């Protein structure tokens, strides 16, 4: 095995062409994933985290979507250069997906067995009977009781948590090197979420795969991540080791996200304002319009480049970490936007 990361995303840009203009859903982001590790992409809705995860194997709808720029190096090969035919050999085989809504992810008119067998037989040259036996084994491994019976059931006969187990079984059918899980527990109850998170952890130990886990829930991130990528409005704000992110968050956005988690009583603080337009994003740092520390320079030019924050591997895109600025200012109380100013802006939503 080489020392290269399993997946290296460099300056990825994904756009959607709509009637109202070009939506820059992902606007130049970079991160990497090592073998066997779990990387969490965290951000609010509209931050571009799902689009990022779907751009890796290009399963976004094209058109209207388009990968405008960037490289996605997977095990030494650039996926963006590949033809769809070549990419198909990787999808489901070496890179598998699990989506947010298990209800929608399964075709309602086919039995779950048929759908998993299809996944196996796309990539492996095995007989139907062999594929069926493998499927029963997979269903059993993801904790579906009586796998031999349930294989012939239709998706509607499963509960939400069980459906998500089926989807995970399907994703694991070819023992992928990388599993991309896009909010796989958001639609589930907390008790079921705990089951699924534990299952994913166990399966990772068993299969040794890497996981990209997309979520908006920092609790889930703390539970499973090795490294974290914090996204906002199509840009990476901060990335680094999970302990650094939680214990020494560097970017004002990350700090704000940690402060707005529920369960902290009066300590809890909302982030004022709302997400900027992705068609015509503001100059400078994308977070500047909502940032309590923003200064004049924050609203100029492009998003600041990633700078190292104290520790190697912990990087942040904020001008306070550039030369001539004092990042300790970020620890002091909020200034800049006054409460009344931020209250009702919000802008047009869609």
């Amino acid at each position, binding site marked *: 095995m080489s020392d290269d990361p399993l997946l290296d995303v460099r300056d990825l840009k994904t756009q959607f062409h709509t009637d109202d203009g070009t939506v820059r859903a992902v606007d130049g982001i970079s991160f990497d994933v090592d073998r066997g590790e779990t990387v969490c992409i965290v951000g609010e809705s509209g931050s571009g985290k799902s689009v990022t995860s779907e751009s890796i194997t290009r399963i976004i709808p094209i058109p209207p979507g388009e990968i405008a720029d960037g490289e996605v190096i997977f095990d030494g090969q650039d996926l963006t250069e590949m033809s769809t035919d070549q990419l198909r050999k990787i999808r489901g085989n070496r890179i598998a997906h699990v989506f947010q809504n298990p209800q929608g992810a399964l075709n309602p008119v086919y039995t779950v067995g048929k759908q998993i067998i299809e996944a196996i037989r796309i990539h492996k040259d095995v007989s139907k009977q062999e594929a069926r036996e493998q499927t029963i084994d997979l269903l059993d491994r993801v904790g579906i009781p009586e796998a031999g019976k349930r294989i012939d059931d239709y998706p509607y006969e499963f509960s939400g948590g069980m459906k998500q187990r089926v989807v995970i079984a399907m994703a694991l059918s070819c023992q992928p090197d990388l599993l991309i899980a896009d909010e796989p527990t958001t639609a589930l109850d907390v008790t079921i979420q705990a089951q699924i998170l534990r299952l994913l952890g166990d399966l990772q130990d068993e299969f040794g795969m890497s996981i990209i886990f997309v979520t908006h829930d920092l609790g889930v991130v703390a539970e499973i991540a090795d490294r974290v990528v914090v996204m906002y409005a199509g840009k990476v704000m901060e990335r680094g080791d999970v302990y650094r992110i939680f214990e020494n968050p560097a970017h004002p956005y990350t700090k*704000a996200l940690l402060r707005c988690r529920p369960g902290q009583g009066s300590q809890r603080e909302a982030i004022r304002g709302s997400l900027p337009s992705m068609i015509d994003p503001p100059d400078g740092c994308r977070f500047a319009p909502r940032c309590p520390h923003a200064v004049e320079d924050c609203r100029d030019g492009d998003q600041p480049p990633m700078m190292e924050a104290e520790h190697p591997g912990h990087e942040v895109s904020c001008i306070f970490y550039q030369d001539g600025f004092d990042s300790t200012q970020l620890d002091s109380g909020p200034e800049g936007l006054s409460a009344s100013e931020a209250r009702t802006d919000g802008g047009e939503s869609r």
Partner: protein
Amino acid sequence: MSADAPLLEVRNLKKHYPIQRGIFGGEVGRIRAVDGVSFSVERGETLGLVGESGCGKSTAATTMLRLEEPTDGDVLFDGVDITEYDDRELKRFRRRAQMIFQDPTSSFDPRMSIGESVAEPLRIHGMSDGNRRRAIVKDLLERVGMSGDDIDRYPHEFSGGQKQRIALARALSVNPDLIVADEPASALDVSIQADILQLISDLQEEFGLGVVFISHDLGVIRDIADNVAVMYLGEIVETGPTEQVFDSPQHPYTRALIDSIPSPNPRERGMAVELTGDVPSPANPPSGCRFHTRCPEVIQPEGYDFEQSAWRSVMNFRTKVTTRQIDLDGIREFVIAETDVTDPEDVTHDQMVDAIRSDFDIPDTLSDPEAESVLSDALERVVRDEFDEASASLAEAFETVCATDSPDMVRTEAGHSASCHLHDQSVEVEPGERIAQSDD
């Protein structure tokens, strides 16, 4: 109306939905969405109603406001039973109790300006003067942090958080005493949730409102509620002051629920108690304590001594045998998939027994020999397709109070109430078990 009566008191409220079949709708069963819940809310107090999806908390909300007719029970508002109200009295009550919904988008008529929507309750309750309505709506919009100039804009011109503010303005418009908020923040991004919750508690303080706050998110409940009631499958299993319930949960379900919240500290991983299985169907709720089919602390019968996790597995097995939910052909196929055997005829009894054991995570032998003999006998019978006999012998040997008797709501040592046999003084429980935590 008495002054000391709580603002809202719900007593043994039930809402059942009939399951109908055929053109003439003969009833073949009923979904017990809410099955006897009781609680009360004082003026200026927030009650948090928490539970997993499908536990009946939303139905409880609509039923206590008589948006749906309750099947049984009383709802006292200011000491007067609203289930007895006629149409005229009900309309007066509607002015005093308002509701806020989860989805800020669908709670506004897309063809009405938000001014019209906020003024709608005013119109309904007889304010015919448009200028007066406009003045009130402008004032309200400003009070919830919007601008009075927004009055002629349409819902699609606002973000989710803004719409939820406007929904609050609409609820306030007729100066109510009680607000029932059904997951008002769960459709919003975390970053703006806090704002809406803050606004709700500010308004509550300002106007002395009673608030019933429904949520599946324990964190949110912890932030906003004074008292909390935990629901499971149509029943309240634990209720008390929020801090107390969160700090020393008395019901195993509450414990599991609190433990399931992922900790924000990455150094405290994997502490969650895992609840097995899914919530059972409210159409056919389990006997005894409704939580016993998933409870990690289900009480062991007298005279046996084995690990709690093995006991839990045996209980799961017993449930499936009783309901005949074990499919022998499926298990046979599973054995084929797992072993070298290819012909279903060649699958041996022992292989079948082993497969069932591993399916239910039952150890190869139970630590208690007596229990082991009952179990292996039952397994034999199941493999021979003698479910009734197996079920009978299991029921006889592994009887637990959790499966037979419904626990009462009792005051626990922690000071608040819970309904669990572990707190039921009449039930014999071994000393260490009463405060048993999970076994791993």
